[in-house]
């Protein structure tokens, strides 16, 4: 005997009540069998399925209200039409109060946008863990400070990132440490890398062979470093970054095991690193297996290379344990090194161990704190004005709510349109806010100063957005629903004059709240204005600082001379002679020269010297100190640094001629006060040199920094190893037109002299100068925008509060007028309110600004953080704009027609 489709039966039975199963399924089955006989099994099965579905569907729907299925339909339709009505109601209410609705949406947009980007930035830059296994166990080890003994720093190559360098002596000792493992030195270097595309300067990191193992990274292709790569007789080995492999070598598969020419030395390509370890910097192209020689303890450190290092804490060890051990290592070095104790040669190294995460975030932190503080202020201003607007909207609705309650509407019924209204506002605000945040995060990196370059990696943080939205929604809906819940159960009393007075009292308390909120806004506007003002003054001062060179019409390029090839002085000077001769032939070129240190670069060499005829200082600290810069004859003219006295260098200052030097005015002031330095001789590197000129002081480290004394030497009179520094040195060219227009010519000239020497860091000197105060510009821009925003918002607040107050007191003003009060009296009444509000806000704002100004101090230049002029200007501006905003409602109050207002009640 055939049975109905078992699946259909089971499915149907699941959907029916137990008491329905028997007869319904039974009936179906009975009919099924009849149909099998008549139409065949397959047709019957199809029929059974169809009927089962119809039965389950129809039954489950209608069974709920057996008494009246029609009733159910009505209920649904009623609910839907009510909802539609509520939406329409909400929409109409929004349109009716368009102004405040739009302000609320915009305010919400600003609030959400700013808060989301702020949290995204904080999350992205400060809180995000490093993308390596157990990131909290990674530490950086560096020398805390290098003592200023005369020879200690003389030949240490200066690296772009400061923060101390670890002596390689110490690395040898740390290798046996118990609290840290995998100690790996690293250094950031620029190298000339030759590929099919030509020779280019690339950012490379020389790292210990344990580097990748320490960070827990895997190869994408080939292998990473192995211990043998560090061996003295091993071939130079390199690991490519994924980006370099993809962009420069076009993802070629056969790359592993081939060679890559770096600084004209073939390096074996071991493999490609997976992803991109963003260490020590984000855009490393190559990692070269470091092959530092480790002098034994006791060797003089003078000519050693000093490196920072990273390591992993041993299991169970803390940062404090490691620091403790580092101090012992320092003591060991001191004990093993003769001459350390008397302080004449080198100082006892002090090691600093810090979590890598903190160390990387460290330089960004103060800037982010300032940025965060400014954003938080705007956020508060926006949030306050949001609450304010919603309060205003809700007080305006009291009467409507009272009427609707009285007419018998339920609480939920009158709440619903309000809720929908808030949802509409919040929805629009949320959408706007997320768009604003996306925009901010996209635009901000373009303005961000160099130390905030990590901003480019910050992504929209959805979690932050959801969190901020939830807070804003709760707040918005809470305040928005107030009018529906504030009123007592519906009674006509609310519409009677007495009831209105009662509403009035409630309105008054809301008024007081609004007033307080506007005061807060005024205060914060003052704070932001003070910040913006201080930075504006800083910018103004900076624009008037003489950098000591002429930035416009000058271009500088760095030259990556491979040290190995250009070790001989003749080869190096030959190269520069050829390039500079070629450059001089260009019609636009006024002057060209080479220097071991271009302006606005870290100084390659600094150290002590002595002045002929003066007693030799007793202690290292008392030696005169100066930065030492080797230049060619045309260099000072090329950067536009004038010779104030004496003469500049010329082609006659050759290696065979008398040793000469030019000092800058800062050195002259400090070491030759009241004397004529020209003609005197100084001793440097055991050679006497005659001072032939005094040059204007250059702001080598940026406009905000103090001048360091500088001695210029003719490059022909310096040993080659010191005459040029590939990290900081290069060529400067002064032109009659656009300086960047001669860059192709410079490149050609360099290529003609030596095709393997890369040119990099091409920039007009003016742009480089502007880059040095990009932080100030960035914060001035941001604070300026924020301040404008805050002032606008608080002015709107002042206006709103006053306009409403005037509206509410129409009757009172009318009465006063009728009783003979004159216009000025009424004007006084109104303006007094505003004056109090602004005065309190301004005082509070000045106090907050005074307390918070310290945050800005590191960015300020030429202006005190508590500059009274800026403070009073900010207060005056806010007061004037506030009074201006108040004048409109005040005018309206004056014009109240007594007859009309008296009739109205």
């Amino acid at each position, binding site marked *: 005997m055939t049975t109905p489709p078992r699946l259909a039966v089971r499915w149907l039975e699941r959907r029916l009540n137990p008491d*329905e199963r*028997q*007869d319904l399924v039974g*009936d179906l*089955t*009975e009919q099924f069998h009849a149909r099998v006989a008549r139409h065949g099994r397959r047709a019957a099965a199809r029929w059974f399925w169809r009927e089962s579905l119809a*039965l389950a569907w129809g*039954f489950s729907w209608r069974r709920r209200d057996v008494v009246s299925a029609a009733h159910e339909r009505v209920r649904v339709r009623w609910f839907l039409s009510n909802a539609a009505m509520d939406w329409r109601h909400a929409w109409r209410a929004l349109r009716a109060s368009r102004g405040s609705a739009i302000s609320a949406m915009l305010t919400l947009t600003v609030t959400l946008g700013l808060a989301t980007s702020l949290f995204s930035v904080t999350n992205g830059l400060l809180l995000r863990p490093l993308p390596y296994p157990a990131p909290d166990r990674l530490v950086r080890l560096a020398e805390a400070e290098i003592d200023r003994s005369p020879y200690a720093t003389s030949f240490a190559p200066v690296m772009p990132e400061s923060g101390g360098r670890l002596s390689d002596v110490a690395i040898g000792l740390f290798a046996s440490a118990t609290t840290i493992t995998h100690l790996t030195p690293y250094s950031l270097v620029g190298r000339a890398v030759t590929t099919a595309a030509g020779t280019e300067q690339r950012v490379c990191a020389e790292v210990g062979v344990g580097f990748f193992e320490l960070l827990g990274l895997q190869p994408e292709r080939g292998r990473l470093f192995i211990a043998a790569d560090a061996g003295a007789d091993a071939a130079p080995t390199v690991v490519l970054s994924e980006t370099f492999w993809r962009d420069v070598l076009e993802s070629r598969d056969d790359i592993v095991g081939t060679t890559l020419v770096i600084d004209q030395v073939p390096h074996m390509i071991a493999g490609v690193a997976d992803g991109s370890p963003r260490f020590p910097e984000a855009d490393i192209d190559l990692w070269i297996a470091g092959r530092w020689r480790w002098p034994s303890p006791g060797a003089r450190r003078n000519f050693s290379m000093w490196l920072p290092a990273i390591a992993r804490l041993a299991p169970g060890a803390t940062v404090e344990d490691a620091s403790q051990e580092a101090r012992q290592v320092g003591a060991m070095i001191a004990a093993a090194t003769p001459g350390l104790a008397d302080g004449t040669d080198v100082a006892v190294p002090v090691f600093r161990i810090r979590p890598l995460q903190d160390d990387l975030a460290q330089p960004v932190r103060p800037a982010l704190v300032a940025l965060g503080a400014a954003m938080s202020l705007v956020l508060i201003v926006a949030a306050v004005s949001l609450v304010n607007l919603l309060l205003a909207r809700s007080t305006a609705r009291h009467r409507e709510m009272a009427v609707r309650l009285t007419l018998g509407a339920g609480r939920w019924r009158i709440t619903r349109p309000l809720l929908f209204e808030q949802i509409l506002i919040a929805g629009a605000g949320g959408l706007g806010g997320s768009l604003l945040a996306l925009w901010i995060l996209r635009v901000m990196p373009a303005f961000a100063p160099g130390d905030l370059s990590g901003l480019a990696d910050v992504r929209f943080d959805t979690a932050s957005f959801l969190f901020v939205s939830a807070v804003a929604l709760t707040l918005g809906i809470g305040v928005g629903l107030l009018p529906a819940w504030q009123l007592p159960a519906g009674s006509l009393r609310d519409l009677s004059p007495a009831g209105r007075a009662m509403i009035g009292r409630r309105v008054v308390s809301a008024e007081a709240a609004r007033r307080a909120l506007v005061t807060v806004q005024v205060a914060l506007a003052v704070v932001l204005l003070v910040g913006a003002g201080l930075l504006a003054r800083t910018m103004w001062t900076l624009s008037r600082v003489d950098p000591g060179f002429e930035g416009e019409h000058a271009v500088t390029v760095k030259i990556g001379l491979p040290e190995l090839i250009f070790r001989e002085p003749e080869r190096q000077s030959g190269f520069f002679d050829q390039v500079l001769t070629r450059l001089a032939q260009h019609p636009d070129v006024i002057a060209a020269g080479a220097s071991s240190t271009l302006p606005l670069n870290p100084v390659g060499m600094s150290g002590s010297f002595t002045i002929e005829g003066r007693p030799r200082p007793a202690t290292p600290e008392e030696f005169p100190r100066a930065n030492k810069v080797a230049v060619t004859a045309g260099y000072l003219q090329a950067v536009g640094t004038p010779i104030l006295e004496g003469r500049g260098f010329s082609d006659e200052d050759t290696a065979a001629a008398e040793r000469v030097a030019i000092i800058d005015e800062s050195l002259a002031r400090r070491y030759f006060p009241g004397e004529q330095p020209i003609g005197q001789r100084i001793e440097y590197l055991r050679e006497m040199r005659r001072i032939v000129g005094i040059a204007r002081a250059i702001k080598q480290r940026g406009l905000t920094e103090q001048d360091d004394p500088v001695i210029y030497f003719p490059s022909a009179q310096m040993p080659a190893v010191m005459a040029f520094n590939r990290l900081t040195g290069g060529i400067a060219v002064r032109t009659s037109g656009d300086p960047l227009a001669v860059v192709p010519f410079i490149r050609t000239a360099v290529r003609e002299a030596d095709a393997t020497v890369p040119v990099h860091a091409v920039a007009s000197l003016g742009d480089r100068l502007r880059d040095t105060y990009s932080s100030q510009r960035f914060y001035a821009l941001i604070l300026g925008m924020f301040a404008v925003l805050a002032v606008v918002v608080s002015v709107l607040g002042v206006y709103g509060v006053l306009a409403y107050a005037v509206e509410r007191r129409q009757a009172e003003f009318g009465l006063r007028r009728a009783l003979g009060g004159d216009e000025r009296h009424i004007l006084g009444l109104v303006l007094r309110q505003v004056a109090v509000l602004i005065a309190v806000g301004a005082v509070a704002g000045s106090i907050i600004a005074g307390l918070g100004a310290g945050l800005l101090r590191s960015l300020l230049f030429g202006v005190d953080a508590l500059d009274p002029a800026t403070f009073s200007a900010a207060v005056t501006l806010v007061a004037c704009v506030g009074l201006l905003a108040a004048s409109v409602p005040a005018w309206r109050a004056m014009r109240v027609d007594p007859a009309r207002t008296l009739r109205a009640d």
Partner: protein
Amino acid sequence: MPREGMGEIEHFVLAALLRLDGESYGVPILEEIATRTERAVSRPSVYIALRRLESKGLVTSRLGEATPERGGRAKRYFRLTRAGARQLEQTRLAFERMWQGLTPASRRTAR
């Protein structure tokens, strides 16, 4: 005078029960309505009408015997109550009164 009449399906179900000697179960009721009205009736609406009529007291029901062709499931027999019969009669009379005096010609104009 009863305040409420019956829906069409309820009317059909009661009439079918009457035709089936006052007591029957789902399958004959469905078939009776289908053959008599020459319409496809929706199965759920018939069952729902039966339950609704039961809740109004117009029919009563009891579980009957199980048969093999029903897969061993019991039938539910519905029986017309006296109130049900009276309601059906009233509805019939109401219809008849409504139709009284209407000629085929007037029926055409109604169209």
